[in-house]
Protein backbone atom coordinates (compact mmCIF):
# COMPACT_ATOMS: atom_id res chain seq x y z
CA UNK A 1 0.00 0.00 0.00
CA UNK A 2 1.36 3.37 -0.98
CA UNK A 3 0.94 6.01 1.63
CA UNK A 4 -1.29 8.97 0.76
CA UNK A 5 0.34 12.41 0.90
CA UNK A 6 -1.20 15.59 2.20
CA UNK A 7 -1.26 18.26 -0.48
CA UNK A 8 -1.71 21.93 0.40
CA UNK A 9 -2.30 24.43 -2.36
CA UNK A 10 -4.08 27.64 -3.19
CA UNK A 11 -7.05 27.31 -5.51
CA UNK A 12 -8.84 30.46 -6.69
CA UNK A 13 -7.24 32.40 -3.85
CA UNK A 14 -8.33 29.95 -1.17
CA UNK A 15 -6.05 27.65 0.76
CA UNK A 16 -7.16 24.07 0.21
CA UNK A 17 -5.73 20.74 1.23
CA UNK A 18 -6.43 17.06 1.09
CA UNK A 19 -4.87 13.62 0.97
CA UNK A 20 -3.98 11.91 -2.27
CA UNK A 21 -2.12 8.91 -3.55
CA UNK A 22 0.89 9.91 -5.67
CA UNK A 23 -0.82 8.55 -8.76
CA UNK A 24 -3.81 10.86 -8.42
CA UNK A 25 -3.81 13.42 -11.20
CA UNK A 26 -4.34 17.07 -10.40
CA UNK A 27 -7.70 17.09 -12.20
CA UNK A 28 -8.99 14.16 -10.15
CA UNK A 29 -7.78 15.88 -6.97
CA UNK A 30 -9.64 19.06 -7.91
CA UNK A 31 -12.82 17.22 -8.76
CA UNK A 32 -12.91 14.30 -6.34
CA UNK A 33 -11.08 15.58 -3.28
CA UNK A 34 -11.81 19.30 -3.39
CA UNK A 35 -15.22 19.04 -5.08
CA UNK A 36 -14.32 21.56 -7.76
CA UNK A 37 -16.10 19.89 -10.65
CA UNK A 38 -15.91 22.89 -12.98
CA UNK A 39 -12.69 21.49 -14.44
CA UNK A 40 -13.65 18.64 -16.73
CA UNK A 41 -11.77 15.45 -17.36
CA UNK A 42 -11.88 14.16 -20.89
CA UNK A 43 -9.21 12.02 -22.48
CA UNK A 44 -6.94 11.67 -19.42
CA UNK A 45 -3.83 11.61 -21.57
CA UNK A 46 -3.20 15.17 -22.62
CA UNK A 47 -4.95 15.36 -25.95
CA UNK A 48 -8.33 17.09 -25.48
CA UNK A 49 -7.57 20.11 -23.28
CA UNK A 50 -10.84 19.87 -21.28
CA UNK A 51 -8.91 19.81 -17.98
CA UNK A 52 -6.88 22.97 -18.64
CA UNK A 53 -6.30 25.05 -15.49
CA UNK A 54 -3.95 27.95 -14.73
CA UNK A 55 -0.90 26.93 -12.68
CA UNK A 56 0.87 30.05 -11.42
CA UNK A 57 -1.07 31.83 -14.16
CA UNK A 58 0.02 29.59 -17.03
CA UNK A 59 -2.34 27.18 -18.78
CA UNK A 60 -1.54 23.52 -18.16
CA UNK A 61 -3.30 20.22 -18.58
CA UNK A 62 -4.39 19.05 -15.14
CA UNK A 63 -4.45 15.42 -16.31
CA UNK A 64 -0.71 15.56 -17.08
CA UNK A 65 0.31 16.53 -13.56
CA UNK A 66 -0.01 14.64 -10.34
CA UNK A 67 -1.63 16.40 -7.42
CA UNK A 68 1.49 15.82 -5.29
CA UNK A 69 3.40 17.95 -7.78
CA UNK A 70 1.09 20.89 -7.16
CA UNK A 71 1.85 20.98 -3.43
CA UNK A 72 2.48 24.63 -2.54
CA UNK A 73 1.30 25.90 -5.93
CA UNK A 74 -1.33 28.45 -6.80
CA UNK A 75 -4.09 27.45 -9.22
CA UNK A 76 -6.98 29.10 -10.97
CA UNK A 77 -9.84 26.97 -12.24
CA UNK A 78 -12.92 28.02 -14.16
CA UNK A 79 -14.67 28.57 -10.80
CA UNK A 80 -12.13 31.30 -10.07
CA UNK A 81 -12.76 33.40 -13.17
CA UNK A 82 -15.71 35.24 -11.59
CA UNK A 83 -17.43 35.38 -8.18
CA UNK A 84 -19.85 32.51 -7.53
CA UNK A 85 -23.05 32.90 -9.55
CA UNK A 86 -21.55 35.54 -11.81
CA UNK A 87 -19.75 35.52 -15.14
CA UNK A 88 -16.84 37.64 -16.24
CA UNK A 89 -16.69 39.43 -19.58
CA UNK A 90 -15.07 36.46 -21.34
CA UNK A 91 -17.76 34.11 -20.11
CA UNK A 92 -20.48 36.57 -21.14
CA UNK A 93 -18.93 36.78 -24.61
CA UNK A 94 -19.09 32.97 -24.83
CA UNK A 95 -22.76 33.13 -23.92
CA UNK A 96 -23.55 35.91 -26.40
CA UNK A 97 -21.74 34.23 -29.27
CA UNK A 98 -23.07 30.76 -28.54
CA UNK A 99 -19.49 29.59 -28.13
CA UNK A 100 -20.61 26.37 -26.51
CA UNK A 101 -23.24 23.75 -27.02
CA UNK A 102 -22.63 20.82 -24.68
CA UNK A 103 -20.12 22.86 -22.68
CA UNK A 104 -17.73 20.04 -21.96
CA UNK A 105 -14.69 21.77 -23.46
CA UNK A 106 -15.68 25.24 -22.19
CA UNK A 107 -13.79 25.36 -18.85
CA UNK A 108 -10.56 24.41 -20.61
CA UNK A 109 -11.06 26.93 -23.37
CA UNK A 110 -11.96 29.71 -20.92
CA UNK A 111 -8.81 29.17 -18.88
CA UNK A 112 -6.69 28.92 -22.02
CA UNK A 113 -8.21 32.12 -23.41
CA UNK A 114 -7.75 33.88 -20.07
CA UNK A 115 -3.99 33.34 -20.27
CA UNK A 116 -3.94 34.29 -23.96
CA UNK A 117 -5.73 37.62 -23.43
CA UNK A 118 -3.49 38.49 -20.48
CA UNK A 119 -0.33 37.88 -22.55
CA UNK A 120 -1.72 39.19 -25.83
CA UNK A 121 -4.61 41.60 -25.23
CA UNK A 122 -5.13 42.21 -28.96
CA UNK A 123 -4.64 38.83 -30.58
CA UNK A 124 -5.11 38.29 -34.30
CA UNK A 125 -7.62 35.64 -35.32
CA UNK A 126 -4.63 33.45 -36.20
CA UNK A 127 -3.20 33.88 -32.71
CA UNK A 128 -6.54 32.93 -31.16
CA UNK A 129 -6.80 29.83 -33.29
CA UNK A 130 -3.22 28.91 -32.48
CA UNK A 131 -3.83 29.43 -28.75
CA UNK A 132 -6.86 27.14 -28.62
CA UNK A 133 -5.37 24.53 -30.94
CA UNK A 134 -4.84 22.29 -27.92
CA UNK A 135 -8.51 22.31 -26.97
CA UNK A 136 -10.88 20.00 -28.77
CA UNK A 137 -14.51 21.08 -29.24
CA UNK A 138 -16.87 18.72 -31.03
CA UNK A 139 -19.95 20.95 -31.09
CA UNK A 140 -19.20 24.42 -32.37
CA UNK A 141 -16.74 24.09 -35.21
CA UNK A 142 -14.70 26.71 -33.28
CA UNK A 143 -16.06 29.71 -35.23
CA UNK A 144 -18.19 31.11 -32.39
CA UNK A 145 -15.41 30.40 -29.88
CA UNK A 146 -12.94 32.43 -31.92
CA UNK A 147 -15.53 35.20 -32.33
CA UNK A 148 -16.23 35.29 -28.59
CA UNK A 149 -12.54 35.59 -27.68
CA UNK A 150 -11.94 38.27 -30.33
CA UNK A 151 -15.04 40.18 -29.19
CA UNK A 152 -13.94 40.04 -25.55
CA UNK A 153 -10.54 41.44 -26.55
CA UNK A 154 -12.19 44.24 -28.57
CA UNK A 155 -14.47 45.21 -25.70
CA UNK A 156 -11.64 45.25 -23.20
CA UNK A 157 -9.69 47.51 -25.52
CA UNK A 158 -12.67 49.83 -25.98
CA UNK A 159 -13.26 49.96 -22.23
CA UNK A 160 -9.62 50.70 -21.59
CA UNK A 161 -9.72 53.52 -24.12
CA UNK A 162 -12.91 54.92 -22.59
CA UNK A 163 -11.35 54.62 -19.14
CA UNK A 164 -8.24 56.44 -20.36
CA UNK A 165 -10.31 59.26 -21.86
CA UNK A 166 -12.29 59.76 -18.66
Amino acid sequence: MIEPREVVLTVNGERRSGPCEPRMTLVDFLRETLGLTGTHVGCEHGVCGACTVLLEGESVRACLMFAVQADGASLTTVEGLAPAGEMNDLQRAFQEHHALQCGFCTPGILTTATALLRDNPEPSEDAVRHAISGNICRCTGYQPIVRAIMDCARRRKAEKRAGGAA
Partner: protein
Amino acid sequence: MKPAPFDYVAPATLDEALAVLVERGDEAKVLAGGQSLVPVLALRLASPAWLIDLNRIASLSGIRRLESGELAIGALTRHRMVERSDVVANANPLLASAMPWIAHVQIRNRGTIGGSVAHADPAAELPGICLACDAMLTVQSRRGRREIAAADFFKGMFETALAADELLTEIRFPAWPAGRAYGFLEVARRHGDFAICGIATTVDRDAEGRIADSRIVAIGLADRPLRLTAAERALAGTKGDRDAIEAAAAAATSGLTARSDLHASSEYRIELAQTLTRRTLMQALPSQTRWP
Protein backbone atom coordinates in the same frame (compact mmCIF):
# COMPACT_ATOMS: atom_id res chain seq x y z
CA MET B 1 -7.27 5.52 -17.68
CA LYS B 2 -5.57 6.05 -14.36
CA PRO B 3 -1.89 5.26 -13.87
CA ALA B 4 -1.05 2.11 -11.91
CA PRO B 5 0.05 2.79 -8.32
CA PHE B 6 3.57 4.09 -7.85
CA ASP B 7 5.52 5.65 -5.04
CA TYR B 8 6.87 9.13 -5.42
CA VAL B 9 9.94 11.04 -4.40
CA ALA B 10 10.76 14.66 -5.24
CA PRO B 11 14.41 15.33 -4.38
CA ALA B 12 15.32 18.96 -3.72
CA THR B 13 18.85 18.79 -5.11
CA LEU B 14 20.63 17.14 -8.00
CA ASP B 15 22.85 15.16 -5.61
CA GLU B 16 19.80 13.70 -3.90
CA ALA B 17 18.22 12.86 -7.24
CA LEU B 18 21.37 11.06 -8.41
CA ALA B 19 21.47 9.09 -5.15
CA VAL B 20 17.83 8.05 -5.50
CA LEU B 21 18.52 7.07 -9.08
CA VAL B 22 21.28 4.68 -7.94
CA GLU B 23 18.97 3.21 -5.32
CA ARG B 24 15.79 2.99 -7.39
CA GLY B 25 16.94 3.37 -11.00
CA ASP B 26 15.83 -0.08 -12.13
CA GLU B 27 12.26 0.31 -10.91
CA ALA B 28 11.86 4.07 -11.39
CA LYS B 29 11.00 6.56 -14.09
CA VAL B 30 12.31 10.11 -14.00
CA LEU B 31 9.56 12.73 -14.16
CA ALA B 32 10.41 16.09 -15.73
CA GLY B 33 7.58 18.00 -17.44
CA GLY B 34 5.57 14.80 -17.69
CA GLN B 35 3.95 15.69 -20.99
CA SER B 36 5.06 12.40 -22.54
CA LEU B 37 5.56 10.27 -19.43
CA VAL B 38 2.16 10.89 -17.82
CA PRO B 39 0.24 9.75 -20.94
CA VAL B 40 2.47 6.65 -21.03
CA LEU B 41 1.53 5.96 -17.40
CA ALA B 42 -2.15 6.75 -17.97
CA LEU B 43 -2.28 4.33 -20.88
CA ARG B 44 -0.34 1.85 -18.71
CA LEU B 45 2.33 1.41 -21.34
CA ALA B 46 4.66 1.63 -18.35
CA SER B 47 4.03 1.04 -14.67
CA PRO B 48 7.17 1.90 -12.71
CA ALA B 49 7.23 1.30 -8.96
CA TRP B 50 8.68 4.77 -8.37
CA LEU B 51 8.59 8.20 -9.93
CA ILE B 52 11.55 10.47 -9.30
CA ASP B 53 10.22 13.99 -9.79
CA LEU B 54 12.91 16.53 -10.77
CA ASN B 55 10.61 19.54 -10.64
CA ARG B 56 11.82 20.73 -7.21
CA ILE B 57 15.44 21.01 -8.39
CA ALA B 58 15.68 24.70 -9.24
CA SER B 59 19.30 24.45 -10.37
CA LEU B 60 18.28 22.36 -13.40
CA SER B 61 16.32 25.22 -14.93
CA GLY B 62 17.66 28.29 -16.69
CA ILE B 63 19.04 29.81 -19.88
CA ARG B 64 22.56 31.24 -20.05
CA ARG B 65 24.66 32.73 -22.82
CA LEU B 66 28.28 31.86 -22.06
CA GLU B 67 31.21 34.15 -22.83
CA SER B 68 32.17 31.75 -25.59
CA GLY B 69 28.87 32.57 -27.28
CA GLU B 70 27.51 29.13 -26.44
CA LEU B 71 23.92 28.83 -25.27
CA ALA B 72 23.46 26.65 -22.19
CA ILE B 73 19.94 25.54 -21.27
CA GLY B 74 19.19 23.60 -18.09
CA ALA B 75 17.41 20.31 -18.72
CA LEU B 76 14.35 21.28 -16.69
CA THR B 77 13.79 24.56 -18.56
CA ARG B 78 10.21 24.65 -19.85
CA HIS B 79 9.58 24.92 -23.59
CA ARG B 80 7.63 28.12 -23.06
CA MET B 81 10.59 29.80 -21.36
CA VAL B 82 12.83 28.86 -24.31
CA GLU B 83 10.17 30.03 -26.76
CA ARG B 84 9.86 33.44 -25.07
CA SER B 85 13.56 33.98 -24.38
CA ASP B 86 15.32 36.88 -26.12
CA VAL B 87 18.62 35.24 -25.20
CA VAL B 88 17.63 32.16 -27.22
CA ALA B 89 16.29 34.24 -30.12
CA ASN B 90 19.68 35.97 -30.38
CA ALA B 91 21.90 33.00 -29.63
CA ASN B 92 20.19 30.33 -31.71
CA PRO B 93 17.45 31.49 -34.09
CA LEU B 94 16.92 27.95 -35.42
CA LEU B 95 16.01 26.70 -31.94
CA ALA B 96 13.75 29.73 -31.43
CA SER B 97 11.98 29.14 -34.74
CA ALA B 98 11.29 25.49 -33.90
CA MET B 99 9.74 26.14 -30.47
CA PRO B 100 6.21 27.20 -31.58
CA TRP B 101 5.96 23.92 -33.51
CA ILE B 102 6.14 21.91 -30.29
CA ALA B 103 2.66 20.67 -29.37
CA HIS B 104 0.29 23.25 -27.86
CA VAL B 105 0.79 26.11 -25.44
CA GLN B 106 -0.51 24.09 -22.47
CA ILE B 107 2.08 21.40 -23.22
CA ARG B 108 4.87 23.95 -23.74
CA ASN B 109 4.05 25.54 -20.38
CA ARG B 110 4.93 22.29 -18.68
CA GLY B 111 7.20 20.26 -20.99
CA THR B 112 10.95 20.59 -20.64
CA ILE B 113 13.82 20.65 -23.13
CA GLY B 114 15.69 17.92 -21.28
CA GLY B 115 12.60 15.77 -21.01
CA SER B 116 12.02 15.94 -24.74
CA VAL B 117 15.65 15.13 -25.54
CA ALA B 118 15.91 12.27 -23.02
CA HIS B 119 12.56 10.83 -24.13
CA ALA B 120 13.92 10.73 -27.72
CA ASP B 121 10.67 10.53 -29.63
CA PRO B 122 11.80 10.17 -33.26
CA ALA B 123 9.31 12.84 -34.38
CA ALA B 124 10.11 15.39 -31.65
CA GLU B 125 11.56 18.72 -32.68
CA LEU B 126 14.25 19.25 -30.05
CA PRO B 127 16.31 16.12 -30.68
CA GLY B 128 16.48 17.16 -34.34
CA ILE B 129 17.51 20.71 -33.45
CA CYS B 130 20.21 19.37 -31.11
CA LEU B 131 21.58 17.23 -33.93
CA ALA B 132 21.43 20.07 -36.47
CA CYS B 133 23.31 22.38 -34.09
CA ASP B 134 25.92 19.83 -32.93
CA ALA B 135 24.67 20.37 -29.38
CA MET B 136 26.56 18.85 -26.44
CA LEU B 137 24.51 17.09 -23.80
CA THR B 138 25.76 17.16 -20.22
CA VAL B 139 24.95 14.01 -18.34
CA GLN B 140 25.56 13.45 -14.62
CA SER B 141 25.56 10.51 -12.27
CA ARG B 142 27.14 9.57 -8.94
CA ARG B 143 30.07 8.34 -11.02
CA GLY B 144 30.69 11.80 -12.42
CA ARG B 145 29.77 13.87 -15.42
CA ARG B 146 30.28 13.43 -19.11
CA GLU B 147 29.44 15.25 -22.29
CA ILE B 148 27.76 13.42 -25.13
CA ALA B 149 27.52 14.88 -28.63
CA ALA B 150 23.96 14.91 -29.96
CA ALA B 151 25.18 12.74 -32.85
CA ASP B 152 26.08 10.00 -30.34
CA PHE B 153 23.11 10.44 -28.02
CA PHE B 154 20.10 9.22 -30.00
CA LYS B 155 20.29 5.46 -30.42
CA GLY B 156 16.84 4.56 -31.67
CA MET B 157 13.17 5.03 -30.95
CA PHE B 158 12.98 6.25 -27.32
CA GLU B 159 16.56 5.02 -26.87
CA THR B 160 19.51 7.16 -25.87
CA ALA B 161 23.07 6.83 -24.63
CA LEU B 162 21.91 7.60 -21.06
CA ALA B 163 22.80 4.89 -18.55
CA ALA B 164 20.24 3.89 -15.91
CA ASP B 165 21.96 5.97 -13.21
CA GLU B 166 22.47 9.08 -15.37
CA LEU B 167 20.46 12.27 -15.71
CA LEU B 168 20.60 14.74 -18.56
CA THR B 169 21.31 18.04 -16.80
CA GLU B 170 22.16 20.62 -19.46
CA ILE B 171 22.15 21.14 -23.21
CA ARG B 172 24.83 23.36 -24.72
CA PHE B 173 24.45 24.79 -28.19
CA PRO B 174 27.69 25.95 -29.86
CA ALA B 175 28.04 29.63 -30.69
CA TRP B 176 25.98 30.61 -33.73
CA PRO B 177 28.37 31.73 -36.48
CA ALA B 178 27.79 35.15 -38.04
CA GLY B 179 25.88 34.85 -41.30
CA ARG B 180 24.53 31.35 -40.68
CA ALA B 181 21.25 30.83 -42.52
CA TYR B 182 18.59 28.42 -41.33
CA GLY B 183 15.16 26.99 -41.96
CA PHE B 184 12.67 24.82 -40.12
CA LEU B 185 9.41 23.26 -41.29
CA GLU B 186 7.34 20.25 -40.48
CA VAL B 187 4.14 18.63 -41.63
CA ALA B 188 1.58 17.17 -39.26
CA ARG B 189 -2.08 16.33 -39.79
CA ARG B 190 -3.10 18.95 -37.25
CA HIS B 191 -1.07 21.78 -35.78
CA GLY B 192 0.58 20.60 -32.58
CA ASP B 193 0.63 16.94 -33.46
CA PHE B 194 3.93 15.16 -33.73
CA ALA B 195 5.46 15.70 -37.16
CA ILE B 196 5.00 13.12 -39.89
CA CYS B 197 8.26 14.60 -41.09
CA GLY B 198 10.16 17.79 -40.34
CA ILE B 199 13.42 19.29 -41.57
CA ALA B 200 15.88 21.59 -39.79
CA THR B 201 18.49 23.24 -41.96
CA THR B 202 21.55 25.39 -41.34
CA VAL B 203 23.84 26.81 -44.03
CA ASP B 204 27.25 28.45 -43.56
CA ARG B 205 28.89 30.24 -46.48
CA ASP B 206 32.48 31.33 -47.08
CA ALA B 207 33.61 34.82 -48.09
CA GLU B 208 32.82 34.07 -51.74
CA GLY B 209 29.29 33.02 -50.86
CA ARG B 210 29.93 29.33 -51.44
CA ILE B 211 28.40 26.86 -49.04
CA ALA B 212 31.17 25.73 -46.72
CA ASP B 213 29.06 23.67 -44.35
CA SER B 214 25.46 22.70 -43.88
CA ARG B 215 23.22 20.54 -41.75
CA ILE B 216 20.02 19.06 -43.03
CA VAL B 217 18.30 17.02 -40.33
CA ALA B 218 15.07 15.09 -40.63
CA ILE B 219 12.69 14.26 -37.77
CA GLY B 220 9.89 11.73 -38.02
CA LEU B 221 11.58 9.97 -40.92
CA ALA B 222 13.48 7.22 -39.13
CA ASP B 223 13.75 5.82 -35.60
CA ARG B 224 15.84 8.84 -34.53
CA PRO B 225 16.70 12.29 -35.92
CA LEU B 226 18.79 11.82 -39.01
CA ARG B 227 21.31 13.95 -40.88
CA LEU B 228 20.57 13.84 -44.61
CA THR B 229 24.25 13.78 -45.54
CA ALA B 230 23.68 13.24 -49.27
CA ALA B 231 21.77 16.52 -49.41
CA GLU B 232 24.51 18.25 -47.43
CA ARG B 233 27.12 16.94 -49.89
CA ALA B 234 25.04 18.14 -52.83
CA LEU B 235 25.15 21.66 -51.43
CA ALA B 236 28.83 21.75 -50.52
CA GLY B 237 30.85 24.20 -52.59
CA THR B 238 27.82 25.52 -54.49
CA LYS B 239 26.40 29.03 -54.33
CA GLY B 240 23.18 27.55 -52.96
CA ASP B 241 21.32 28.59 -56.10
CA ARG B 242 18.15 27.04 -57.44
CA ASP B 243 19.95 24.15 -59.14
CA ALA B 244 21.91 23.32 -56.00
CA ILE B 245 18.76 23.38 -53.89
CA GLU B 246 16.96 21.11 -56.34
CA ALA B 247 19.92 18.74 -56.36
CA ALA B 248 20.01 18.68 -52.56
CA ALA B 249 16.27 17.99 -52.36
CA ALA B 250 16.54 15.19 -54.91
CA ALA B 251 19.49 13.65 -53.05
CA ALA B 252 17.98 14.13 -49.58
CA THR B 253 16.69 10.62 -49.06
CA SER B 254 18.98 8.61 -51.31
CA GLY B 255 19.68 5.25 -49.74
CA LEU B 256 17.13 5.79 -46.96
CA THR B 257 14.04 3.86 -46.04
CA ALA B 258 11.51 5.87 -44.04
CA ARG B 259 9.36 4.39 -41.34
CA SER B 260 5.74 3.68 -42.04
CA ASP B 261 2.84 3.90 -39.59
CA LEU B 262 -0.84 4.72 -39.48
CA HIS B 263 -0.13 8.43 -40.03
CA ALA B 264 1.84 8.08 -43.26
CA SER B 265 3.47 5.54 -45.51
CA SER B 266 7.19 5.27 -46.00
CA GLU B 267 6.85 6.66 -49.54
CA TYR B 268 4.93 9.70 -48.32
CA ARG B 269 7.57 10.46 -45.71
CA ILE B 270 10.29 10.25 -48.36
CA GLU B 271 8.37 12.74 -50.52
CA LEU B 272 7.92 15.04 -47.54
CA ALA B 273 11.60 14.90 -46.64
CA GLN B 274 12.56 15.97 -50.16
CA THR B 275 9.95 18.71 -50.35
CA LEU B 276 10.76 20.08 -46.90
CA THR B 277 14.48 19.98 -47.68
CA ARG B 278 13.78 22.21 -50.69
CA ARG B 279 11.49 24.52 -48.71
CA THR B 280 13.77 24.92 -45.70
CA LEU B 281 16.65 25.71 -48.05
CA MET B 282 14.42 28.33 -49.70
CA GLN B 283 13.79 29.75 -46.21
CA ALA B 284 17.51 29.77 -45.53
CA LEU B 285 18.56 31.17 -48.90
CA PRO B 286 15.67 33.38 -49.99
CA SER B 287 17.76 35.55 -52.34
CA GLN B 288 18.68 32.44 -54.31
CA THR B 289 15.24 31.15 -54.77
CA ARG B 290 13.24 33.59 -56.85
CA TRP B 291 11.89 30.85 -59.03
CA PRO B 292 11.25 32.18 -62.58
